[in-house]
């Protein structure tokens, strides 16, 4: 990455010493994060194994989980109804743990496009679509998404025609949202796995639409 120079490397030339990450000064909050975890483990609030597993779960929670729910909803009307009624219960049907905080799916329709935001902080269905992108937590997104959603969508390259209503949903600590996008045209007869490949994280936030079949 930092190899933007053009000399050959077989000439015995040595690069200047580059400090490793571990050589940086101990940052206060990193020490704090380590210590808080250590104290909680020492006191038996949770085990070191619990912590390790949880970090693994964070690494594993890719948008693929949410994409599976969307693809199933596209091919199974009954599942779609159950998903719209209770995302957490519908996810459990597929063996997916969506967490203890209620999540509501908001469905795009031919005349309606949905967008999610958390103006106060960063609430987000993390177990279904992974940790939120930096921009979701940013001042600009949190401020503007509810004031000028069409302009925000345009910045993401998503043009929503004026005759389509844009609905913005502001998440809270007690209720999170995910967007159920519209099934792209030209996917008749596709199976669930293939359909899931069209569903992106951003399409479940609402800043983008699912991939179009030709590009999949």
């Amino acid at each position, binding site marked *: 990455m930092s190899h933007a120079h053009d000399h050959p490397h077989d000439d015995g030339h040595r690069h200047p010493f580059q400090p490793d990450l*571990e*050589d940086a000064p*101990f940052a206060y*909050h*990193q*020490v*704090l*994060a*380590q*210590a*808080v*975890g*250590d*104290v*909680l483990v*020492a*006191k038996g*609030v*949770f085990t070191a194994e*619990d*912590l390790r597993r*949880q*970090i693994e*779960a*964070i*690494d594993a929670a890719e948008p693929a989980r949410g994409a599976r729910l969307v693809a199933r909803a596209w091919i199974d009307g009954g599942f779609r109804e159950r998903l719209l009624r209770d995302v957490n219960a519908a996810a459990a049907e597929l063996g997916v743990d969506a967490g*203890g*905080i209620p999540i509501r799916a908001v469905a795009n329709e031919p005349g309606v496009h949905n967008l999610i*935001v958390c*103006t*106060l*902080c*960063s*609430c987000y269905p993390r177990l279904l679509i992974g*940790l939120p*992108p*930096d*921009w979701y*937590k*940013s*001042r*600009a*997104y*949190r*401020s*503007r*998404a*509810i*004031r000028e959603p069409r302009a*925000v969508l345009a*910045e*993401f390259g998503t043009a929503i025609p004026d005759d389509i209503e844009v609905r913005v949903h*502001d998440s809270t*600590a*007690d209720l999170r949202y995910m967007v159920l996008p519209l099934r792209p045209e030209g996917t008749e007869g596709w199976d669930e796995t293939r359909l899931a490949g069209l569903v992106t994280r951003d399409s479940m936030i609402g800043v983008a639409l699912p991939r179009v079949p030709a590009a999949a």
Partner: protein
Amino acid sequence: MRRHHDMGGIEAGPIERGEHDYEPWEKRVDAIMRLLTHPSRRVMTVDELRRGIEALGPGAYDAMSYYERWIASVTEILIEKGVITVDELGRTMSAVEARWRQERAS
């Protein structure tokens, strides 16, 4: 009156769409929070995390990174609730630093 974190609807510039990979310590903070709020433990709630973040004040709020705010808030709430003490935490922080220093030297 609107507080510092309550920014919905105010004017702001373009959205910086860059993304970074989460660092191990950031995932650790996230994992700690998930374990503490898990229904089987309920040591603290997401509302409490937010209250702690909102109590940081505008200066600290803007100076800290996202997970710095989280761990600062989690620490405050845990101390407030008596789950951990300032003394335990201070001793453990010293031990962590000493351990890291030793690992670096070896």
